[in-house]
């Protein structure tokens, strides 16, 4: 499978699995417990201040001891309320449920009368779950006298799922469309603050949980019931305070577990006080629940998964821990803003995701290594690997070792390939899609003088190809680069001459990877200079046969047509000899390219005279005089006598051809010193019309022989090319120039042979 696709799929899978696990976990009790304990820890860090206006009247152990066993007669309560009236509290909550009428009406009526009027007294109502006779609940209302005279009746349900009182409901909704009951403290608050309802009550739906932040234990002002009954309290202590009367005595059973680190129970009345205090400061904590809780629990999972995608593996653990801390910190910060985000789900998710991801990545890595190694072995790129008894123990270790070996082998292979490349007999370069050379062998560098890697292929072309062909080669590269070639051999190569005078065929073959993508091109240069010169020679042979040989032969045939008088015979003879000389020139030239130079010691002036003498009949014919001026001081040259004679003969023959009648051809020999070594120069001067300046630069060029103009000027195609070949072979040179006074000078220069 595609590695990338696999990555994406596994990523999604791990995120989803973790998310689903977390969603399920959110309904587990354990998660709640964990959340609660985190909450307890966090909330212990910042507890609210107890409200100073709240006064608890505690039915404590001392009160029981002084007043008597519980339940107390109702007139005791009536008496207390009478006393309270005089002390003028703002509100009173009587957290004692008196639901059954006593035997006679008198004390009940007295109590009812005592709570009537100012200050407002609020009494509780209990719910009993489940109710009798299949009802879901039953209410346990206060006795009629209390109910009629109280400022309000509020419910006092205290329950939490883990039996620790963290959450309260400001409003109880029994369901079934029954009446909703506000909490006793909500009623007291409304009275104390003279408001329709508390802000918290207004914000929340009925039945919605709010978390109650607790002030420190025993931080509410408290007086004993007995002390109040006996008026043993200072004046003004009660005035304008919100009084809550409730049991604190251990034996009375109205104590509940509270979320304090120290654990323990708290009397219901203190819990009520905390509620009232919180209502007053409007600092209930709103727990995030439902889908918001799910979303907030899952969000960190996906954020962490995203981080896994972009961070390197070594940061995975760090980022996981960071996310854990971040989630906790977020919860703490939210708590300061009175919102409780339970972090346990998110924490669980993070703790799940890290090992899952690590596991899948390790598995993916392991699979990948195994596949790659197998693939490499299948393709025959590397030898057997896994049986090498690798020291690393576990499977991943062994796979790593195998992959390591494979990489070593591939490195060797690469080195081998690059060695092969650099030892290729012809220059070669590889360019990428942009035309930048990314690889080239040593020969390119040698030819170029520097590495071409990183250069544009066009730049390389400009530096190598002769100017006249650059455009064509660039066009060729451009055209074949844009069109991915269809293995059409003929279109994939171009022939050009290099600036250093060689001939190349550049073949281009595209590099296509196994996914059919065009990666670049290989430019392979074959040096076909030898082939090209063979071609030129063949061209020369054809030239010789088609023109040079034919011309004199046609002349002979033409001469035979007329009367065979003496001059006709002469012409025939001359043309036949010319044909022979051509053939001989040609054979000699061919021989010279094949054989080593083997010169003998020759008196140059002798050789020159021989040549002059041999051409005397030809000169005589045209009334020409050949004068040899010898200033060579009996110099010898190392020469292949026949070839040199023929070469000089060609020059003289040429001079004869272009000399007017009755003129003179002078052959001057001089001994001259060039670069401290002796040379012999032979100047052949005629009195003809000179050489066409246009032809002069190319006079001796062998391969320009197809030029018709030049052909006519030279008369015999090979003649002067032969001269140059011979001169070069003798380590000499030949040049031609026009004299100022008219006529041409051909100068042959040869090194002198020292005696011995």
């Amino acid at each position: 499978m595609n590695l990338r696709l696999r990555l994406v799929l596994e990523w999604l899978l791990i995120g989803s699995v973790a998310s689903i696990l977390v969603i399920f976990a959110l309904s587990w009790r354990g998660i709640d417990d964990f959340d609660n304990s985190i909450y307890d820890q966090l909330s212990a860090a910042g507890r609210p201040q107890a409200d100073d206006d709240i006064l608890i009247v505690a039915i404590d152990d001392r009160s029981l001891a002084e007043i008597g066993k519980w339940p107390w007669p109702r007139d005791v309560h009536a008496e207390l309320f009478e006393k309270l009236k005089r002390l003028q509290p703002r509100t009173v909550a009587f957290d004692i449920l008196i639901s059954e009428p006593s035997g006679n009406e008198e004390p009940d009526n007295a109590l009812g009368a005592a709570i009537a009027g100012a200050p407002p007294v609020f009494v509780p109502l209990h719910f009993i779950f489940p109710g009798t006779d299949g009802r879901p609940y039953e209410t346990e209302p206060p006795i009629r006298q209390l109910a009629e005279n109280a400022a309000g009746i509020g419910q006092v349900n205290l329950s939490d799922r883990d039996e620790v009182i963290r959450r309260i409901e400001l409003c109880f909704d029994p369901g079934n469309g029954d009446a909703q009951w506000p909490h006793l403290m909500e009623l007291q608050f409304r009275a104390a603050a003279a408001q329709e309802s508390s802000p918290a009550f207004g914000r929340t739906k009925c039945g919605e949980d709010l978390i109650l932040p607790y002030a420190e234990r025993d931080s509410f002002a408290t007086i004993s019931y007995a002390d109040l009954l006996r008026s043993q309290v200072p004046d003004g202590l009660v005035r304008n305070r919100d009084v809550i009367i409730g049991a604190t005595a251990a034996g009375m059973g109205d104590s509940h577990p509270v979320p304090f680190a120290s654990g323990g129970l708290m009397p219901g009345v203190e819990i009520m006080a905390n509620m009232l205090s919180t209502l007053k400061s409007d600092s209930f904590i709103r727990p995030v629940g439902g889908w918001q809780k799910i979303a907030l629990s899952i969000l960190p999972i996906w954020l962490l998964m995203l981080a896994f995608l972009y961070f390197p593996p070594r940061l995975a653990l760090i980022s996981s821990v960071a996310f854990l801390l971040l989630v906790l910190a977020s919860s703490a910060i939210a708590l300061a803003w009175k919102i409780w985000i339970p972090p346990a789900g998110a924490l669980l998710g993070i703790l799940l995701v890290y090992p899952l991801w690590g596991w899948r990545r390790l598995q993916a890595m392991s699979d990948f290594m195994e596949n790659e190694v197998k693939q490499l072995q299948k393709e025959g790129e590397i030898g057997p690997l896994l049986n090498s008894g690798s020291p690393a123990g576990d499977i991943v270790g062994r796979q790593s070792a195998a992959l390591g070996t494979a990489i070593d082998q591939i490195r060797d292979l690469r080195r081998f390939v690059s060695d092969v490349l650099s030892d290729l007999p012809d220059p070669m370069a590889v360019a990428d899609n942009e035309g930048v050379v990314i690889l080239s062998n040593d020969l390119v560098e040698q030819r170029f003088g520097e590495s071409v890697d990183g250069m544009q292929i066009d730049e390389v072309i400009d530096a190598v190809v002769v100017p006249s062909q650059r455009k064509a080669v660039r066009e060729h590269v451009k055209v074949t680069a844009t069109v991915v070639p269809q293995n059409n051999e003929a279109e994939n190569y171009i022939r050009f001459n290099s600036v250093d005078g060689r001939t190349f065929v550049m073949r281009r073959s595209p590099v296509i990877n196994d996914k059919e993508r065009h990666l670049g091109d290989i430019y392979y240069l074959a040096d076909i200079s030898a082939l090209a010169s063979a071609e030129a020679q063949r061209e020369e042979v054809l030239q010789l046969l088609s023109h040079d040989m034919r011309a004199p032969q046609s002349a002979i045939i033409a001469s035979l047509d007329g009367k065979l008088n003496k001059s006709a015979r002469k012409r025939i003879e001359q043309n036949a000899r010319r044909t022979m000389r051509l053939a001989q020139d040609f054979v000699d030239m061919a021989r010279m390219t094949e054989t080593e130079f083997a010169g003998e010691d020759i008196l140059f002036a002798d050789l020159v005279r021989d040549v002059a003498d041999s051409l005397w009949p030809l000169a005589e014919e045209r009334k020409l005089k050949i004068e040899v001026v010898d200033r060579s001081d009996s110099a010898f040259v190392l020469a292949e006598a026949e070839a040199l004679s023929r070469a000089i003969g060609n020059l003289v023959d040429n001079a004869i051809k272009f000399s007017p009648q009755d003129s003179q051809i002078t052959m001057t020999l001089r001994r001259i010193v060039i670069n401290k070594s002796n040379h012999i120069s032979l100047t052949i001067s005629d009195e003809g019309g000179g050489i066409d300046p246009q032809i002069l630069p190319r006079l001796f060029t062998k391969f320009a022989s197809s030029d018709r103009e030049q052909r006519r000027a030279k008369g015999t195609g090979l003649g002067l090319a032969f001269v140059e070949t011979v001169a070069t072979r003798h380590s000499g040179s030949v040049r031609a120039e026009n004299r100022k006074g008219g006529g041409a000078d051909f100068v042959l220069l040869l090194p002198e042979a020292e005696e011995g």
Partner: protein
Amino acid sequence: MRVAIADDEIDVTQFLAKIVEEQGHVAVTFSDGSLLTQALVRDTFDLVILDWMMPGKDGLETLKWMSETLTDAPPVIMMTNRTAKQDITDALNAGADDYITKPEDRGVIAARINAILRRTTSTGAFETKASYGKYELDRIEQTVTMDGKTVSLTAKEFELADLFFRNRDRTLSRNYIMETIWRTTASLATRTLDMHISRVRSKLTLKPENGFRIFTVFGYGYRLETIDKG
């Protein structure tokens, strides 16, 4: 005199036979080497002109056969299409007396044939004075006059000139010249001969205008050719 001509080309044998007959000799032609060798066993010839390339027995084989079989072999002139130096020296070293490269001017061929026949029939008589065209040699005074003017030569130069004129139209090997003039071949610097010949050549202005030319057979020797001004 009887001259045997062996060549497989009928045009060439007829051409040569005509030259030979014009010089007042008898020409007998053969179309290959084996026919010639059969004839040589029972017939006597004063000169053999051999073609290099022939069917049956080629020129060089025939030449070898002659030097190995015949007790008094006639002189041989080899004819060759090739001007390659090696072929010429091979032929001369194998015992040929001279060579002719085809195609050659008829006058030159006649001169060569006469030169060989002249040597073989020479009486060896010592003439004190001899005249060759413009040149007159006085062997007592050891002087050469050209158009009546005396050309001053050293003793060795005179000997060289004399040797060439006597053997005009014959190819002389360097060894032969050195043995004849210096009576040695060993201790003589090779360039000495070349320089002497060059000097004789320019002092006597031996060039075609004056009826003679010196022809260098590179790698073998020299020949003084008479120029047929026809």
